[in-house]
């Protein structure tokens, strides 16, 4: 079961990551502010209690207390590091900012043959469902698509893409894929001029071993060109590109395998109806 002993991952929904919140705990910090205050407070109590006792147990208590105070003050926990836990920032994978990376690539295995999967990425209606967690897609003319993304404060940004048949060689990762393994089903698109996030994307399909279906890789390159701006827009949208790409693939797999995408639409709680994050 999952168990970061903190709710850092939950915080993503409510408190967007900002560079300032990250730097609070220092460059190697992995203990969040409340966690640090708590640590220091508990540590202080244990330290004082331990010192008062003047016994072996008391000394042990004081040592633990001292370690907690240090953890609270320095904002770094060796235990957390070993566990891969980070309560300081909102990145629940690791403390490195991920929005600066130029290429985001994720893969998923779908239990269907490739020829049943390609249309999900070409048909604007299906594509809109796949990316429905962040964008609407419509089509205008052959293989041309319009993407609309709604920002957190009601702003809209949009861009156009075009499917292109020949991928330039520059998109190939260093030699780990030869032309021989390229499938006819693979799709490649590019943004058309003046896109706020100039990028290009590739979906590759290759047979999985045995009867496991098809391995589908989604790769998005958005830097260069336009890297700084693209990164700024991503920050503004409060999205981590790798989560966006990963979630899109999961939604695609669910739709292809089950005919629906798991959802918390209209989900009841004392907060009201719906839990769309």
């Amino acid at each position, binding site marked *: 079961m999952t*168990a970061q002993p903190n709710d850092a991952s939950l915080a993503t929904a409510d408190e967007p990551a900002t560079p300032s919140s990250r730097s609070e705990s220092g460059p190697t910090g992995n203990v969040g502010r409340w966690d640090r205050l708590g640590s220091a407070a508990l540590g202080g109590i244990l330290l004082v209690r331990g010192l008062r006792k003047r016994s072996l147990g008391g000394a042990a208590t004081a040592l633990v207390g001292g370690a907690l105070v240090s953890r609270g003050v320095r904002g770094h926990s060796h235990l957390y590091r070993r566990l891969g836990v980070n309560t300081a920032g909102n990145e629940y994978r690791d403390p490195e900012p991920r929005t600066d990376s130029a290429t985001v690539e994720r893969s998923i295995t779908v239990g269907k043959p490739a020829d049943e999967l390609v249309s999900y990425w070409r048909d604007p209606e299906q594509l809109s469902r796949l990316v429905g967690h962040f964008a609407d897609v419509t089509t205008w003319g052959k293989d041309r698509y319009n993407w609309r993304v709604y920002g957190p404060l009601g702003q809209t940004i949009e861009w156009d893409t075009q499917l292109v048949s020949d991928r330039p060689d520059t998109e190939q990762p260093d030699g780990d894929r030869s032309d021989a393994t390229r499938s006819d089903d693979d799709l490649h698109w590019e943004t058309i001029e003046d896109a706020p996030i100039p990028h290009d994307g590739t979906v590759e399909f290759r047979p999985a071993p045995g009867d496991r279906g098809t391995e589908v890789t989604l790769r998005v390159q958005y830097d260069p060109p336009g890297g700084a701006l693209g990164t700024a827009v991503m920050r503004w949208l409060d999205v981590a590109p790798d989560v966006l790409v990963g979630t899109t693939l999961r939604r695609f797999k669910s739709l292809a395998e089950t005919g*629906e995408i798991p959802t918390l639409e209209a*989900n009841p709680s004392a907060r009201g109806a719906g839990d769309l994050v």
Partner: protein
Amino acid sequence: MSMRALCWHDVNDLRVDDVPEPELVNPRDVVLRVTMTTACGSDLHFIDGYLPTMREGDVIGHEFMGEVAKVGRKVEGVEEGDRVVVPSFIGCGSCGYCQDDLWSLCDNTNPNAALQEPVLGDTTAGIYGYTHAFGGYAGSHAEYVRVPHADENCFHVPDELDDEQALFASDAWATGYMGADFCDIEEGDTVAVWGCGGVGLMAQQSAALMGAERVIGIDRFPERLRLAEREAGSETIDYTAVDSVVDALKATTGGRGPDACIDAVGMEAHGTGPAHAYDRAKQQLKLHTDRGEALRQAIVACRKGGTLSILGVYGLMDKFPLGIVMNKGLTVRTAQQHGQRYVPDLLEYAAEGEMDPSYLATHELELEESPRGYDLFKHKEDGCVRPVFVP
């Protein structure tokens, strides 16, 4: 339209609130009118603040049954008015894991997979009322609950069974049965089970049903030990009454140790001694890492080459004696429950009178009284094994 539901507000703060009624959203959904729902020991992990990603106002509860009230347009084989029991983990029935009968590993039912993936490296199936990392679905301690992929998750309850006889097939019974199934029990086997709560008792009864020569239940609450003896026919060990559970097990098995050990306790295993106060303090500050007393005992007690079946729920346990597991050549088997694989068999056992888990339901309460029910359950007051709620 609103309904009443038990909601989590904060650590140790549960309240019955008005919440919106669930709706049909996806084409294979049904909305179920809940007729009976029960507290599970794993709920205590987020009630006590051990599991993150709860949000204020979440409807909790994942072990339930009911009557189908609304049916999505693509549902087959389930109709309005059907009386069904539903496993706590949601399966899609289509992905490779569901097809391999590993339903709690379903790829397609956790809308919040992105919250789990960085920690687990993948995602589990979604579950009702059990943190946002585990799907965020509204739970069953409510008048109504939405059940996705209804054709895969609704199991018809034979008319002759009471709600109490079918309810626990939703989770406790299926989990305990799976734990015994993991042990590949052979003639002459001794199976030791840590924990005589709902899951532990079900594991003991299932092990006996599968032909174990001896079943030994371990707990500290006299009324639970009595239930293990009376209902499951187990021998018992009160761990507070012996110097060492491991020695006691060795002594009673000719020095070999049990052939299989089932951990039905999990991360809130009770410890004794000075570590306890520190654990409690850490829990309050969310700095807690798991205690694993039961699991450590099981590893040491188990015979060489034996099976360790882990049903207790763990977080990121940071200290695990892997060297002992390795040197003793133990086989570790574990999972969240694959309910859909077992429920049809369990309902048949109940209908044929071979097993009747209704004795777990020690307290029947109205939904409005469910916070008190959780209190009884958590503190094991008044002999409470499981409170069941009738919305």
